[in-house]
């Protein structure tokens, strides 16, 4: 019984250490400069950092296939950027506060396009 308990505790410790080692700043400088950060859910950000925040040009890749390449401000998608959806659809244009805001083009995976002004993720007719 004691051996089993010891084995469980030891396994938990090892897995916690392994998880801790696989997340966080993996390359470069994630305080001020250029670096790569890996989150616990395998989301990654590689790009510029200012005062420990994503700021400048960078690429954020989600494990489920969303990829944002473009400008970041205060860790949010802000400025000009392109979002690739998992099915191949894209939105290229202006972003504010993490949403499609401003001028941009949404392209569906079948090639159909919608171009114009977007506000908080909605197309303005």
């Amino acid at each position: 019984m004691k051996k089993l308990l010891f084995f469980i505790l030891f396994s938990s410790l090892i897995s916690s250490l392994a998880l801790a080692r696989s997340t966080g700043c993996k390359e470069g400088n994630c305080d001020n400069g250029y670096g790569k950060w890996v989150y616990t859910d395998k989301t990654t950000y590689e790009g510029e950092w200012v005062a420990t925040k994503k700021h400048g040009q960078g690429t954020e890749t989600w494990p489920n296939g969303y990829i944002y390449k473009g400008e970041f401000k205060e860790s949010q998608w802000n400025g000009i950027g392109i979002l690739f959806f998992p099915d191949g659809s894209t939105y290229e244009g202006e972003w504010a506060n993490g949403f499609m805001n401003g001028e941009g083009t949404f392209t569906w995976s079948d090639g159909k396009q919608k171009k114009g002004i977007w506000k908080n993720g909605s197309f303005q007719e």
Partner: protein
Amino acid sequence: MEVSKNSFKTLSEPVKQFGGLVGIIILIFLTFFVLNNIFGEGDELVAKMKIEEERIAQERKLNKLISSLPSGVLVSFDGTDNFKLSDELYEAVCKATKLIPQRAIMGANFLNFRAHEIYTINGNKIDETFVKWDDEKNKCFAGFVVSGNNVGVDETVKVSGEALSFLSTGIDTRVYFIKNF
């Protein structure tokens, strides 16, 4: 009355015993008939048990299928390096999937700002998730409901769309991409 009493007495012992046995059997049947009428559910219970058995058998079949799938991202569309599901597998995976992880919810919220707002203010709480196979459209639909009830916002938003990709962990499957645009 007296005559029938006397005629009963004149019967032989084995006949009397047989009559008694038949009487007891009839009494038992009547008792069960009355009890069944009072508590009902006899046929209903059998039907329910059959449905449950079928459900368990179906679940076992789906679990077997899930454990046979490759671990990683499974998609229902072309154009990626991920494992492409056949039509049959797509339906089976859809029916076996119950979980929707946070990134899939966040992705769907890109196209629904109000859902994002409520999801943010309520502390990332989801009221309800659903994954359903649509027999008519032959498609898998998934979605979730967010509400601000826990923070005093009397508003509920339902987000739904086609579930086009899944994550197979080897133990279960999760919706990975909800196309709500």
